[in-house]
């Protein structure tokens, strides 16, 4: 368990309420609400979940149960440049694991961690559907295709 304590500002609470209202405070829309909140805050800290819980009338334990069920949701903030390595089958058979290992080594991170300067975070994901480009690495919105372990250092250099 790792929870980061943040103070929600009034405008944050207002924003969450606005999101919930836009989904008519319907508990069925919980996942859509969480998507919108994560889009706004970048992640889903406990406090945000508490407010969502109150607005939708869903026990906060249940909200947390949903957040921890779906890999898309995260309770830790991402780095400024989130790096995602596709570990879909197509990428895997073309050596994505070695690319991931190289990123781990270069950044000194494990999957799910953020560098101390909050610059990079490392995650793996399952198939972005760009199998023609395997192995695929995403840095923020940018896609790198046919990445070899040797390319890793150069990719990182772009963000220095």
């Amino acid at each position, binding site marked *: 368990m790792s929870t980061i304590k943040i103070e929600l500002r009034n405008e944050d609470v207002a924003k969450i309420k606005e999101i919930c209202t836009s989904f008519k405070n319907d508990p069925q829309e919980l996942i859509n609400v969480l998507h919108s909140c994560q889009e706004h805050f970048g992640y889903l800290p406990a406090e945000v979940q508490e407010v969502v819980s109150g607005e939708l009338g869903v026990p906060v334990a249940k909200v947390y149960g949903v957040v921890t069920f779906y890999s898309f949701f995260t309770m830790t903030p991402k780095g400024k440049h989130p790096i995602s390595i596709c570990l879909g089958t197509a990428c895997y058979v073309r050596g994505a694991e070695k690319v991931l290992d190289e990123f781990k080594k270069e950044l000194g991170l494990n999957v799910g961690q953020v560098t101390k300067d909050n610059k990079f975070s490392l995650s793996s994901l399952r198939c*972005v*559907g*760009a*199998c*023609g*480009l395997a192995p*695929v690495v995403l840095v923020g919105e940018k*896609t790198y*295709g046919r990445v070899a372990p040797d390319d890793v250092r150069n990719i990182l250099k772009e963000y220095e």
Partner: protein
Amino acid sequence: MSQIKSLADLKKKREELRTGLINAIESKNQVQVKVAMATCGIASGAKPIKEFFSEQLEKRNIPAVVTQTGCMGYCYAEPTVEVKLPDQDPVVYGFVDLKRADQIIEKYIKTGELVDGIIPVNYLTIDSKE
């Protein structure tokens, strides 16, 4: 856009669109360029290719319609672009980078001369007669 109120309306609309679309292109003698812009196409750099075609064709005074389309299926050859010259069968080019895009305009579109990177069409459609 106005509502389509009946099947007859829909059929009429289809016919209008068919003739309208074809006429628009044929009458102006336009070149039709379609850029495959599904996720993998975009990830491979289809966006700047589409922009390049739009800008350059205009700049070079070639009447053309540049549109996006979905996945053509040739993921290994992304970005892929289909070019249809007036009165001719469309030709699909793969591995289109800016250099090749320029070649396509200068050679294929301007003179009809084929350029490297053609992808042979390898499927039947629902309208094919076998």
